């Protein structure tokens, strides 16, 4: 399993799954993170834990350009700094209170996160866009074998639902892999649905292979 401190981009979500004003949980190989999109459309990521009482921030709420914890309403800005403690409205929160912002970026409809800011941008997949994300309880080898795919630079290239599909891998290291599927840009909704159905078949096949893969 890769160390969390690796300065490398990990595919963690599909951009379209995080509308403006929402927060979702996501994972880097060894830590849970909260990914949220401000009202402006800007996307941010930080540790999925409020420094106050340890509540998961992915259960919180986004207003304007801030993320608030659902437990006590502590409000954090895009730099991770705590801006407001509602129980003490007159108190300016000390700048030591921070929810740990993490690097993230978007490309091809994919959200990429990292524990440490990588020196280079994530790989580009010109002509392809993210279709959906799914978690498969199998190894990358089993997934690759189940779709008769070709391994290219950490991705799997396969024909799924009649489309040239690129599968990005986020290996949780716990027997589960998050797979983000990219399909040719501009394919029709019915064709996208065929790929989605093929991904479900792939999941069942890969999970059924067990250790035999």
């Amino acid at each position, binding site marked *: 399993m890769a160390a969390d401190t690796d300065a490398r981009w990990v595919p963690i979500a599909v951009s379209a799954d995080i509308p403006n004003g929402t927060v979702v949980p996501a994972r880097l190989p060894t830590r849970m993170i909260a990914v949220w999109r401000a009202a402006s459309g800007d996307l941010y990521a930080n540790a999925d834990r409020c420094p106050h009482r*340890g509540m998961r921030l992915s259960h919180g709420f986004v207003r304007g350009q801030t993320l608030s914890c659902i*437990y006590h*309403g502590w409000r954090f800005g895009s730099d991770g700094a705590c801006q407001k*403690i*509602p129980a*003490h409205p007159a108190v300016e929160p000390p700048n030591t209170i921070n929810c740990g912002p993490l690097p993230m970026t978007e490309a091809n409809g994919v959200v990429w996160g990292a524990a440490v800011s990588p020196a280079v941008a994530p790989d580009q997949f010109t002509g392809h866009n993210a279709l959906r994300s799914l978690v498969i309880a199998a190894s990358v080898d089993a997934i690759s074998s189940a779709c008769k795919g070709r391994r290219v630079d950490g991705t799997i290239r396969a024909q799924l639902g009649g489309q040239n599909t690129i599968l990005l891998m986020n290996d949780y290291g716990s027997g589960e892999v998050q797979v983000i599927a990219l399909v040719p840009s501009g394919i029709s909704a019915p064709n996208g649905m065929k790929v989605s159905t093929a991904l479900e078949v792939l999941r069942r096949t890969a999970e059924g292979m067990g250790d035999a893969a």
Partner: protein
Amino acid sequence: MTTAAVRNAWYPVGLLSGLSLDGKSSLLLGEEITVFGSRDGVPEVESGGRALPVVQRFGHLWTSLGYPGKDLFTIPEADHPDRTLVDVGVVRVKCSPLRAVENFLDIAHFPFVHTDILGAESHPEVRDYKVEIRDEVDEVWATKVEFYQPQAAKSAGGGITTEYMYRVPAPTCCVLYKTCPPRPGEWDVIALFVQPLTEDLCDVWPWMALFDEDSTLTELIHFQQLIFVQDRSILENQIPKRLPLDPAMETPTRADLTSVAYRRWLKRQSYTYGAQLVAE
């Protein structure tokens, strides 16, 4: 970790009104126990062929895996004959028993977790209150706690500033005294009795002694269960699972002084079951 303080404490293991003559299996501190009702005598609790001590109080059966040096605490205020005693039942929560108690001691979450019931986002301020560890009774007390509540109780008609007192008479039990809308001068009593099944799983037995002549028992139970289900969504999502006794791991403010005292009191008596002493 199972210290003497942990083994010798009293724990709730069932409602007296809900015991089974055939025996019911349960867990206490990770050990299997069987709780037996009795048609005419005293209920029994058994663990590994050994009969455990029992006490019947507050509508619940209590036991201990060790040898309790003192009697189970009492709640004299709850003895008033006009009070409605409410056995709320049991709520299983995947959390540390200590986190469940600490959440009960916290008022700052009302506007966000019990929105427009126990708190309102427009009134989130927690004013200073008094906290002390009363050495003579070995209990944690918080007094002069005031909070604005849109609907403080089933019997409250609208928004009022409620006054609270909190009492921790045992490591996994807490008692809340709050302004009683129909009887100024008296306190409603709401208690939380927590049965630690394991370090990160517990059965919570809420119990109430209220002055409320208008609500049915079912309404009172539903109100309290709604509140507790809202709390459960928090309790099952805190990291780490076990309550950190190391102050550096979390960030308390003045509103959290009850929890600060509670953690200090647990540490002082080496009550570490469901707790985490150092950062992992």
